[in-house]
């Protein structure tokens, strides 16, 4: 379609898929924090996710998130290629006035997050390592369910894994610090005042996500959550 081949059309799709992913990341973080509420609460939550809508719910959510990621990545790669081509010869004297460091490495933070995402899916969703699928089942009020709580404890018992997770969350924080505030601008909702507000909200959100995702693995590593 003509809209999708235009610069602004692509940008709008990137903003919309970004918005979906922002929503997903926030929900995922809240779910994560249930680790502090103990094994029963966490496993009940995990069980709920896997059974809602007769087990269809999770596949709908997964398709939306996967689809958004694929489109977001493909379009940003195309846009970035065009952007590089548009400045064929670099300046002899490089100068940046207002663009943040994060805003200038979006493609790097983004592609790092993509590789993290693939690792994360293999780690906790497909569970290819550590024999998570052989974990003894958890007794959730008489019902035998998968022990997602134990999987988290085991998964984060290696400092190297924890380190990689937290590093990835730093990249996510960087990515969000520019991305969130860009959404209303690209969707054409910004005024002078709302632009400033969204910039602050975007930063606050980015650090909230960093903190929210880092405390669980750190707590597990320090033995605070067992």
């Amino acid at each position: 379609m003509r809209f999708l081949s235009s610069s602004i059309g692509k940008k709008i799709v990137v903003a919309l898929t970004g918005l979906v992913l922002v929503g997903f990341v926030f929900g995922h973080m809240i779910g994560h924090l249930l680790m502090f509420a103990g094994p029963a609460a966490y496993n009940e939550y995990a069980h709920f996710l896997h059974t809602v809508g007769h087990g269809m719910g999770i596949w709908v959510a997964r398709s939306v998130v996967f689809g958004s990621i694929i489109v977001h990545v493909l379009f940003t790669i195309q846009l970035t290629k065009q952007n590089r081509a548009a400045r064929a010869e670099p300046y002899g004297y490089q100068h940046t006035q207002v663009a943040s460091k994060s805003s200038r490495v979006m493609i790097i933070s983004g592609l790092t997050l993509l590789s993290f995402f693939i690792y994360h899916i293999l780690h906790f969703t497909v569970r290819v390592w550590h024999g998570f699928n052989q974990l003894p089942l958890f007794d959730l009020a008489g019902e035998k369910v998968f022990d997602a709580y134990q999987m988290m404890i085991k998964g984060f018992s290696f400092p190297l894994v924890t380190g990689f997770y937290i590093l990835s969350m730093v990249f996510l924080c960087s990515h969000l610090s520019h991305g969130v505030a860009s959404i209303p601008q690209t969707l054409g909702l910004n005024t002078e005042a709302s632009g400033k507000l969204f910039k602050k909200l975007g930063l606050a959100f980015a650090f909230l996500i960093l903190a929210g995702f880092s405390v669980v693995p750190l707590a597990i590593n320090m033995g605070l959550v067992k």
Partner: protein
Amino acid sequence: MNLNLHLKVWRQASPNAKGSFQDIEARDIPDHASFLEMMDIVNERLIADGKEPVAFDHDCREGICGMCSMVINGRPHGPERATTTCQLHMRKFRNGDTIWIEPFRARAFPVMKDLMVDRSAFDRIMAAGGFVSVRTGAPQDANALPIGKEVADAAMDAAACIGCGACVASCKNASAMLFVSAKIGQLNALPQGQPEKHRRTLGMVRQMDKEGFGNCTNQYECEAACPKDVSRTWIASMNKDFAVASGREALLASARERSEGD
């Protein structure tokens, strides 16, 4: 007071020639000279020495025509906020400074010679919709068309754009979206611009894409470099106008197909 400056000036004989920086000592430059007058002095000395003067664009020299360009120490139009190169004064520099002077760099703005670039891409974008069509004849009474103060002020802010291309030069992606959005926004804001609003938006954005400018990544280097302080919010308005115009175009096309099918 007079200044002695070390210039590093981009020299490029022709569009396809390979360019490089030339070191030029600019001695005894009066601090009340404008940047372009400094270049004039340098050029007169080059000519007196039998050398090729530095080619650069200029015209009004009073900050309204948008002809002067140059990237000075990495910043289009130099270090002063909201100031064109022609309005920049040498007192903003210090004795002994090294000053890098290069052309606006963008694939859509090919270098013609030294510091001169071809900005006719902007003209083609304007020709694709940056106007209001009116039948000729006697002008109507100015008061026949009431325009709210806020709208008039906003349109005036957008109209401050002199089309110099500093936004493209400063953008990390050589995007022209600040320029294009100011031109679209000025006319789309006013009642006279309404009849052609959608056609204008689609036409100008598509021409912009065709010229090979990059895509805005919301970093606002353009706004910081703009000699006329044109606001980033015009880009947001353009994004919205383009989405609406595209949606409308698609709906009309499908309606047309259906009626043709009958």
